[in-house]
């Protein structure tokens, strides 16, 4: 074999190994779990096997889908409110020094409060419906979106602003032609952190007081010592996080210019 061919082969092997690494590792772990749990003498009551969990999801898919729909709604709605309010707040922080000085300490203080501790109070204020869950999802997603947007806006080269101003651009044009596009990569970073936190917010809300949702389902299952269903709910919560995150990535690919792709 000539060296060129050998090199090509080495590259191919490497690419296959790199792509396969994550799924293979996941499968190995699942397999260890599947085989290990019964070997260790753990019953489904203590630790169900992955196969049992999957079978349960398949068997109870209608029930799970209904609850998942509720959690998804709470997550997305809370996230959307956080996105709008977060970007709005970031704009005010960016454009007003007084607002920045006034709001930043409050924001940080708010961020430091453990939101789980707020949940019972929110139920007291907002009742058992969607409101406290939306609010928690919103609360968790808000902060990273604000910070990432401010960082993105402030990262713009001042010379860039001078450039468009020398062309006679208004602040409005400056914002839409350069500030916003330049801030988008960072903004999307904040949105992606935000949406995964929104899932947690919605589920925490359901833990405290709810009649619907995956958090509620998981809690009910635990209360009835139905460990397999509890695990099934957890798996679906995780899947929800992955799917919403992925949805944002698709949006990001369309909205944000891919620096690497053009190279």
């Amino acid at each position, binding site marked *: 074999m000539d060296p060129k061919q050998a090199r090509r082969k080495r590259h191919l092997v490497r690419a296959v190994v790199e792509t396969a690494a994550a799924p293979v590792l996941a499968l190995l772990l699942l397999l260890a779990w599947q085989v290990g749990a019964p070997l260790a003498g753990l019953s489904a009551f203590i630790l169900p096997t992955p196969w049992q969990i999957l079978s349960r999801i398949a068997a109870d898919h209608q029930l799970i889908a209904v609850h998942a729909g509720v959690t998804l709604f709470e997550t997305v709605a809370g996230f959307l409110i956080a996105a709008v309010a977060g970007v709005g707040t970031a704009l005010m922080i960016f454009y007003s020094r007084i607002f920045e000085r006034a709001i930043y300490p409050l924001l940080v203080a708010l961020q430091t409060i453990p939101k789980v501790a707020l949940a019972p109070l929110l139920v007291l204020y907002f009742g058992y419906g969607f409101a406290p869950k939306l609010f928690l999802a919103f609360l968790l997603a808000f902060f990273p979106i604000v910070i990432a947007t401010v960082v993105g806006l402030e990262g713009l080269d001042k010379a860039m602003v001078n450039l468009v*101003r*020398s062309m006679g651009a208004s602040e409005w044009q400056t914002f839409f032609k350069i500030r916003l596009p330049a801030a988008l990569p960072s903004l999307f970073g904040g949105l992606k952190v935000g949406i995964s936190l929104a899932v947690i917010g919605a589920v925490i809300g359901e833990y405290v007081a709810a009649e619907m949702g995956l958090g509620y389902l998981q809690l009910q299952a635990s209360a009835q010592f139905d460990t397999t269903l509890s695990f099934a709910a957890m798996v679906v919560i995780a899947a929800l996080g992955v799917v919403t995150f992925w949805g944002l990535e698709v949006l990001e690919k369309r909205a944000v210019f891919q620096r690497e792709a053009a*190279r």
Partner: protein
Amino acid sequence: MKDPTPATARLHGAAVAIETVTKSYELRDGGDLLALDRCDLSITPGAFVAIVGPSGCGKSTLLSLVAGLARPSTGRILIDGEEVRRPHAKVGVVFQTDLLLYWRTVMDNILLPVEIKGWRREDYLPRAERLLEQVGLAGFAGKYPSELSGGMRQRTAICRALVQEPGLLLMDEPFGALDALTREQMISDLQAMWLSVGNTVLFITHSIEEAVFLADRVLVMSPRPGRIDLDLTVSIERPRSWRSRTDQAFIDHMSQIRGIFEARGVLSKE
């Protein structure tokens, strides 16, 4: 820029008058920093004027005042008899770095000023294409800045400044960030471009050689507060080439400017 006589129409050069302009900045401790001290300058239409000075002498400040990005503390600046209060529609600026928007193609970058001024894109597309051709970037219209070399990027930035048919082109150390070889080529290409376009150019540099090679008139600025120390007319025949650099006139001009810097302590006499 291989062909100095392309179809780009010659422009009307703008006249610039700088009348006793002073610029001072307020410092944090309450004091004032005098960046420019009573600058007087009048530039005839179509002239290529270079300003040389050490770092921090206020030459960039002067340029930003002419560009309308800042207002003078005292005095006034006129472009074609009209006082500059905001960025002038027919002034193009080239900065030290190319400042291309990485998410826009070369063509969309060039047409940015047209877009911002609310002019019709189609009206300027042919001109943009001719400019690209003239700087040797024909066929690069659809590329992204990340696909270009440093020199190509700065050429794109020059096209962007020229697309709006500026009577006055302001250049703030435009080749400062380029490697020496690219810089050499850019300097002679800029001369060819200017000879064909014919607009007024105010060119800021800290390279004495660059200034003498390019300009009809070299203004030497003193260290801060910036004042015009020397107003030198360079009458070497155009187009100038690298051979012009061995001309006695070229060497004399260079050492005259050097002399000023030595007297001011910017350069040592060694």
